[in-house]
């Protein structure tokens, strides 16, 4: 085994990607002001996107992307065995993300559409969140993953403290910033049922919330559907909006 790291006091960190766009990993490299501080506290022992090398065990594994093939399942079990802490990084890993939109259709139709006659060469599964297969200790939500939340989790892990996920709506952070309500501008917003932690980034710069950080823990979906319909969407359009990032969480919810 090459490059086996020396044991140090610093946590050994490994970063893995599954089915996703790798934007969350790229977002880690985007920590231009903080990257050196981050690296001062950890040893990165495996990260395909940024370095060579392979490690046998690690203290913290960041996992990006959803699980969508039988091979993904084998790899995630392997990573779970080698790591002490497993962090799901970004919407795909936490909820299945946009990939899970495919779960709203029969899987055979999806395979046919993507691979045509070769579909039997590519075994596929519904797009699953990492937590549906192995134990996930912490989530960093968002599409791409929310940088400020990553830093909060990172400092907590380095200090050996627990990290508590926010469980309130994006509206809370939006109101703390005294933004004009997105609905007041004539747009549709999923902020009322979407989990905060992004400091209302999109709504503050004039966009609407697409729900990329997933739903709050006890969402009133019927109530949210009614809000969207009252603001001009059809029930189908409302559900398409809600399912964009939350198809797995909404599976089986009554329309």
């Amino acid at each position, binding site marked *: 085994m090459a490059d086996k790291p020396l044991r140090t006091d610093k946590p050994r960190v490994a970063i893995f990607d599954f089915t996703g766009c790798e934007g969350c990993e790229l977002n880690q490299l985007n920590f231009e002001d903080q990257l050196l501080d981050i690296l*001062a506290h950890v040893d990165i022992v495996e990260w395909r996107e940024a370095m060579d090398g392979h490690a046998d065990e690690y203290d913290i594994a960041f996992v990006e992307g959803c699980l969508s093939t039988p091979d993904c399942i084998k790899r995630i079990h392997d990573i779970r065995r080698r790591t002490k802490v497993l962090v799901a990084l970004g919407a795909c890993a936490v909820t299945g993300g946009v990939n899970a939109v495919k779960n709203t259709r029969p899987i055979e139709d999806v395979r046919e559409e993507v691979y045509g006659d070769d579909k039997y060469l590519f075994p596929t599964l519904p797009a699953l969140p990492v937590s549906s297969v192995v134990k996930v200790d912490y989530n960093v939500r968002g599409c791409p993953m929310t940088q400020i939340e990553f830093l909060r989790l990172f400092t907590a892990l380095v200090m050996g403290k627990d990290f508590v996920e926010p469980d309130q709506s994006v509206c809370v952070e939006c109101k703390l910033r*005294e933004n*004009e309500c997105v609905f007041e501008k004539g747009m549709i917003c999923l902020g*009322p049922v979407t989990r905060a932690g992004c400091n209302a980034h999109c709504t503050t710069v004039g966009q609407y919330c697409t729900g990329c950080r997933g739903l709050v823990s006890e*969402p009133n979906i019927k*109530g949210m559907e009614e809000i969207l319909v009252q603001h001009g969407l059809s029930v189908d359009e409302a559900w398409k909006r809600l399912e964009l990032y939350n198809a797995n969480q909404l599976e089986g919810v009554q329309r």
Partner: protein
Amino acid sequence: MAQFFLATDRVADFVAHLMAQKPVFAPHPKGRRSYAFALTEQAADVVLDYPRTLHSVKKYFLPPREELLTFDLTANSGAVTEPEPTDAVFLGVHSYDLAAVHRLDFSFGHGNPERNYLTRRQGALFIGVSFAPDRFHFSGSVGIDPYDMTGCDAFLTKLDDGWVLDVLTAEGEALMDGFDLEPFTGTKPPRGHFTQHIYVPQAKLGDIMKRSHDHEVWAETADDCVGCGTCNLVCPTCYCFDVQEHVDVTVTQGSRERSWDGCMLRGFSEVAGGEVFREERAARQRHRVMRKFLYISAETGHPWCVGCGRCTQACTAGISIVDIVNRLVGDAERTAVAPV
């Protein structure tokens, strides 16, 4: 005290005169169709004729996010962050928002006086302004008139061609020093009518609330409510907050911060061990309304709702606190037993 006439074309001069003396916080346009209090940089930006601001002036005395202290983990030391007195003119405050400040003065001044709020509150001068009630205002139902000047150092009442300026205190008089205006000799126009009303006198509301603990309106409202917490966060008399500590990425420096919180949020009532003592949205809605019309009112004799209409306007689900209260009033009167 004295009454003057401030013509529309002199308003900007008036604002500039104030700005030469103290920082002036006043309503400015924000977004597509909203208004917000902001520090005035250009006198011409100030809007005095506005329906309501996104947040009340509460945000200057109880900031949405506020650093309480900083600490250094390597030196094992900490320092309390000292709040500063505001010492500014608040221009264009509606009567209900000033009434809300007086309620907060009670909440933060009684029992354990709260240093940060009370320090920030020092030196604040208020120039009120009349408002024309829109379809959300109902302050008349909680005893707050659009022309109510209580607590103001000066007050502007809208005319067709300008404003009546009432100078009410010595501080208000000092602000006007060197700004010449003609005395106002006419009569003020009648105040605008409210279209929203609570259909019962304040004195009866407490009793009705006491009898409404098990009313079906709470569960029915909870079907529409998504629990986003907006109604709490826009309320000028809500004062609950959460306190959290953050450590920066060097893992040496950190701060303790408090930020607005609200009883409509599930996490608000979550305590050690994971127990949530108001698990149902219906119970949270009931608590919010009772806090405005029963719990604190029973202690102080005043409703803790000031009728600004923000919670109703801001609710994307269209939940109206006036409708909730009137439903309780109507049912209480229908089932009332005549005195023997």
